[in-house]
């Protein structure tokens, strides 16, 4: 709508038949249409907010907030009981680095006795054990005797275990008293805090997360490359064959796409295990001896092969949809102008497929970094990805805040790639089959 129309000082205001200004009427109609369109989407949007965005948001909050040290939910009554009240008050009154005095130890002893009473001591010990390992038993054993302790408490506690004087422990307790902590993110990046609360790298033999993040990225990139190398020729073939033939060959790509992930993973176990089909064939043909069967599964090789197979259709389909409309006359023109077939391919055909390579590559990479099932089943120990570690902390070690922190980091990475994908390819262009 131009300024000329909307500026009443310069021209007569246009009106609708019933005398209302046209602009307002149009705007109203526009707004009504917008509302209508929005109402259609609203139910789904609400549904996704409830079943997806809120749960993920809750998980994010879990990664920065772990109340195990200062709050206990009574399992019989469901009530929330504050823990370590006196000690937290002491932390509030005394700045970081204050040498813990008798008052601090008295508060600690009271807290321990109370924790023993409420049976929350295990939770407290586990929480501190995340930061300073090997301290869990100090809490449980001291709590058992806390009720009978007599002042001076400092001496009494140190009598039970002299490690109570460890400044790292006090620093950890202070941190655990806060309702907001980034410590789990530090742990997820292989950092920890020393006695003065400074961020330092963890000892080398305990560092594992950075390594796994790196491995996840490298393996995903490698798998993406493999799917491109394998996907490009067949996408090209499918795109250049007459539709009658290519539709038939397309089944080879679509059938894996529609087949259960677990079926495909099972197949690879059957094929690759050391008593499996491939090794049997090699032994039968005398290619390798029966003693030297190759270990192709339960390691990185297994993960790479199975994931490449599973993700290949996600590369072929976008490539195909970009290659199909490419006019073959461009390449023919290049040839007739004297280009060799290689030059014509490289200079004329390839550049036109770049959008497909980008779309397929990003999609495969995004899916690969978050893979869980296949590495868990065929990855052994060296083929595990970061997702498997998240599952480990969710289901085995039960350090849920750390699992949430790792998940949030992975999520941030994926969302960045997703944003990139939307910028470069556009979500609307995502096609299936």
């Amino acid at each position, binding site marked *: 709508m131009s300024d000329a129309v909307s500026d009443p000082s310069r021209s007569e205001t246009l009106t609708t038949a019933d005398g209302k200004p046209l602009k307002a009427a149009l705007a109203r109609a526009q707004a009504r249409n917008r509302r209508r369109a929005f109402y259609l989407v609203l139910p789904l*949007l609400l549904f*996704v907010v409830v079943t997806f965005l809120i749960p993920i948001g809750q998980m994010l909050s879990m990664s920065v907030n772990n109340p195990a040290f200062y709050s206990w939910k009574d399992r019989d009554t469901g009530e929330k009981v504050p823990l370590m009240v006196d000690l937290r008050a002491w932390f509030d009154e005394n700045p970081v680095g204050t040498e813990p005095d008798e008052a601090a130890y008295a508060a600690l002893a009271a807290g321990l006795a109370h924790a023993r009473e409420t049976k929350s001591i295990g939770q407290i010990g586990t929480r501190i054990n995340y930061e300073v390992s090997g301290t869990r038993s100090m809490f449980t054993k001291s709590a058992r005797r806390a009720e009978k302790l007599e002042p001076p408490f400092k001496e009494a506690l140190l009598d039970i275990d002299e490690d109570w004087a460890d400044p790292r422990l006090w620093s950890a307790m202070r941190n655990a008293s806060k309702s907001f902590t980034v410590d789990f993110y530090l742990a997820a990046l292989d950092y920890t805090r020393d006695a003065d609360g400074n961020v330092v790298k963890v000892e080398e033999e305990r560092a594992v997360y950075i390594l796994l993040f790196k491995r996840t990225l490298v393996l995903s990139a490698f798998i993406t490359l493999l799917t491109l190398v394998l996907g490009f020729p*067949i996408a090209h073939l499918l795109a250049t064959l007459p539709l009658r033939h290519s539709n038939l060959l397309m089944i080879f790509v679509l059938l894996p796409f529609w087949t*259960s*992930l677990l079926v495909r993973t099972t197949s690879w176990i*059957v094929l690759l295990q050391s008593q499996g*089909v491939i090794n049997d064939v090699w032994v039968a043909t005398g290619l390798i001896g029966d003693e030297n069967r190759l270990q192709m599964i339960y390691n990185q090789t297994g993960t790479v092969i199975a994931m490449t197979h599973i993700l290949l259709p996600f590369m072929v389909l976008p490539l195909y949809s970009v290659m199909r409309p490419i006019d073959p006359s461009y390449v023919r023109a290049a040839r007739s102008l004297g280009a060799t077939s290689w030059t014509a391919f490289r200079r004329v055909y390839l550049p036109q497929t770049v959008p497909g390579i980008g779309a397929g590559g990003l999609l495969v990479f995004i899916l690969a970094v978050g893979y869980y099932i296949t590495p868990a089943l065929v990855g052994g120990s060296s083929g595990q990805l970061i997702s498997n570690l998240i599952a480990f902390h969710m289901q085995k070690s039960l350090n849920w805040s750390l699992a949430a922190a790792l998940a949030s980091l992975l999520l941030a990475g994926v969302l960045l790639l997703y944003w990139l994908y939307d910028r470069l390819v556009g979500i609307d262009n995502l096609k299936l089959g």
Partner: protein
Amino acid sequence: MALQSYASPLEKIWHYTYLVICALIFLFLIAPILIVIPLSFNAEPYFTFTEKMLALDPTGYSTRWYDMLLTFGMTNPDAPRDSSWWADTWANAAWINAAKNSVIIGFFSTILATVLGTVAALGLSRPEMPFRRSIMAILISPMIVPIIITATGLFFFYSATGLANTYLGIVMAHATLGIPFVIITVTATLVGFDHSLTRASASLGADPTTTFFKITMPLILPGVISGALFAFVTSFDEVVVVLFVAAHDQQTIPRQMWNGIREQISPAILSVATILVIVSIALLTTVELLRRRSEKLRGVSPG
């Protein structure tokens, strides 16, 4: 991809090499899926071809693993196979129960995803839709966000709200995962949709409901059905969310397979795999037929 008449000998060699490479890649794609079919009829508990199988000796083949799908978990598998035996199978066999759960969860999550997704796709493909791109990005994100993250979030959320270990919880989660597929397929169908048809219908006196069911729906139906099939397959194949939020009596087929693969991968797993491959072939065929029908309806020639 025909070879041009002016191709040099070198190019000819390359052309045939290229075709061989493509054939090998197609083999890589399809062989692992087909290999499980003959192996599932192995008479021995191995995952490889026995000599008898290679010699096509009928005694090398058997359907014992398919039988095991029926008997595993039964209270009295060795009883004579009368009606009470079948009742026992129906009530207690682990794989049968898993199949029941998979179908129930798949059915309801598909309905939920398809209804919500189709209505939303109608809104999203209107040009007036505000914040179209961002909303689309949110609705597609369950497909992009790693499933382990979704499952982790749902575990906490469901535990806090009492949805854990309920069918409703799993159905809602699977519907969320299926929605992106419905949105994508239905919006793709709506791209070529001729809006003058609905205007014509309106001008002829039809109310919006009539227009929707008489005009719009038949035209987008193929897209809706293939979206629904995608949503169904997503639920039918999903294991991580089930691992995290389902109760032990809500085992689905993939969950049962997951157990089987990790503990003792007997050829019974391969017989399940074979059945699933056949199911996916059937689904693929349906989707293909629908796609062609949709193209015909929309006047896009398949060439």
